[in-house]
């Protein structure tokens, strides 16, 4: 967690075990980010639903707990770097950045519109805080490798971390494995890749489109330290990132098992929600015309578990 002193200078506090209260606060924050994701997708009328909802917990943990960054000074030189390789899940990146204070939350509703800073796929020159332009899959890890190599030339004892977030479907790309091989060769200990293992891609389940397993063994054989974690368990993810930071002599991969469209039970796990916003998704549970309203209702009530008398 990074705190700021009166002059706005960042002070790094090391990773720590999250208290129940802290976990609870992050969970509430993630839920608010999910609601923003739905609102911006509905307003845009296009975009991806499954991946952003599935990664909301991890993005919340990163931007509200883990990262060394300063939303008021996005170009702060000492910041950690976040490379979003699967650019299509940018609604979660934008929503998290807005809630973290990079820009006004109202701006989220400009997603994908003409003149917006929130391009359909992220563009580094459009919005401060976006480290790389991405969308074409498979190129992020190479860029993160390049960043870590450049940092090592300047400062072998750097305290910066380079986080690369990838999808699992994009592990079909050959370039990803070029980069995994390279990162392992270079023993880039401050490089941490978090793989969104939600098991879906556009054409179907990853196991049908192109089987990836045994994924852990593949990565280990490339000389990466590998952990498998429940990507919705914020405390477990925090601990895994802490361990990844502690690993020396190897880069780290965290295979985060997530549920596509997490948080809206009637959308969850269905690959058809990959590239559709609420209003254009599959109608097996909810009619198109009601998808937006149902999605927000599900989030606000924690899928109906929260009753009116639970809140003041």
């Amino acid at each position: 967690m990074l705190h700021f002193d009166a002059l706005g200078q960042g002070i790094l506090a090391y990773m720590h075990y999250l208290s129940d209260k802290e976990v609870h606060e992050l969970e509430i924050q993630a839920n608010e980010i999910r609601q923003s994701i739905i609102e911006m997708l509905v307003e845009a009328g296009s975009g991806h639903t499954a991946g952003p909802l599935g990664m909301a917990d991890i993005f919340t943990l990163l931007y509200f707990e883990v990262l060394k960054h300063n939303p008021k000074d996005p170009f702060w030189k000492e910041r950690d770097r976040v490379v979003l390789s699967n650019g299509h899940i940018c609604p979660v990146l934008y929503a998290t950045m807005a809630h973290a204070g990079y820009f006004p939350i109202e701006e989220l509703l400009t997603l994908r519109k003409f003149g917006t800073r929130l391009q359909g796929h992220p563009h580094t020159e459009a919005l401060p805080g976006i480290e790389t332009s991405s969308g074409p899959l498979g190129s992020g890890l190479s860029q993160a490798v390049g960043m870590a190599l450049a940092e090592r030339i300047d400062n072998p004892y750097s305290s910066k971390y380079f986080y690369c977030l990838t999808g699992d479907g994009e592990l079909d790309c050959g370039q990803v494995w070029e980069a995994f091989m390279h990162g392992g060769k270079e023993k880039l200990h401050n490089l941490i890749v978090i793989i969104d293992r939600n098991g879906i891609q556009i054409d179907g389940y990853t196991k049908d489109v192109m089987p990836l397993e045994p994924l852990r063994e593949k990565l280990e054989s490339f000389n990466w330290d590998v952990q498998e974690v429940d990507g919705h368990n914020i405390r477990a993810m925090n601990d895994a990132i802490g361990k990844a930071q502690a690993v020396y002599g190897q880069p780290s991969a965290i295979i985060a098992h997530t549920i596509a469209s997490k948080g809206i039970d009637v959308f969850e796990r269905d690959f058809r929600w990959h590239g559709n916003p609420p209003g254009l998704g599959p109608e097996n549970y909810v009619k198109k015309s009601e998808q937006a309203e149902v999605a927000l209702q599900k989030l606000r009530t924690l899928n109906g578990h929260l009753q009116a008398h639970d809140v003041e």
Partner: protein
Amino acid sequence: MGNLAQHINPNLFNSDVETAPNRNGYGDGLKEAGEADVRVVALSADLTSSTKTNVFAEAFPQRFVQVGIAEQSMASVAAGMASMGKIPFFASYAAFSPGRNWEQIRTTIAYNGTNVKIIGAHAGVSVGPDGATHQALEDIATMRIIPRMVVIAPCDYHEAKKATLAMAKYVGPAYMRLAREASPTITTPATPFAIGKADVFLKRNVEHGKKVGIISTGIVTYQALVAGKVLNEKGIGASVMHMATIKPLDKEAVLRFAEEHDVLVTVEEHQRAGGLGSAVAEYLSLVRPTRILRLGIDDVFGQSGTPEQLFKEYGIDSQSIINETQKFIG
């Protein structure tokens, strides 16, 4: 014979003209750029010696990155290094880079706004016996079409060295194509070089009535110069302008050259579609429609052979330029 510009090697048309591969100019220039600026780093995909990256790698081992045979990753690793403030040069054969990694160059380098330099060595048919797989004939077109990308094809050792130093100072993505073979040294260390500036190397004999402007790029500028000399001897007023930078096009020089000559001939070791000739024609079609004979490889792949045989086969040796120019002006 026309008049060679003063800053051109006076020994150019002698049989004992000195030769060197222009990729050596890259190697020496990169080392010099590395000495001048600690931000310069170099990457290679298992072709360190043949791209002459070894000169830099030996001088600055800690600033050299070996990525293995992985051109796609190399482009994006370079982009990542640039986003941390480095000035990366990455080199391979043009057939593989930018041949194989076009999208990575487009998105992670050009669109991303990173300050990366791309070196495509062994370009053109002059790589010879290796055959068509290794003869990049499309790279000028595929790089030129990317927004922001600078495209340079130096004619010899000295120009390649100066271009490398200029690329290191220029902020933005840039591509330079190089040749494998030793080629005549056309320029001298004193010849001026600037990105985006064309240079008239040979001025026509003004006493001749017919006026032909030849525009060439890369090492075939030597073929164009020999052709220009012979054409002047045959009573045709031929000038030769070397376009080291294909993009940004030196529009002022092209327009002036078109105004000073009746017709133009372009010469390049590249597909006729999309290269130097296309760039010249695209510009002049608007400001001064001009008859242009575009010499280059005509929509076919190359093959094995010596550079001389292949230049002749594809109509870009000096004799072919002479013959085609004579036919063109009738």
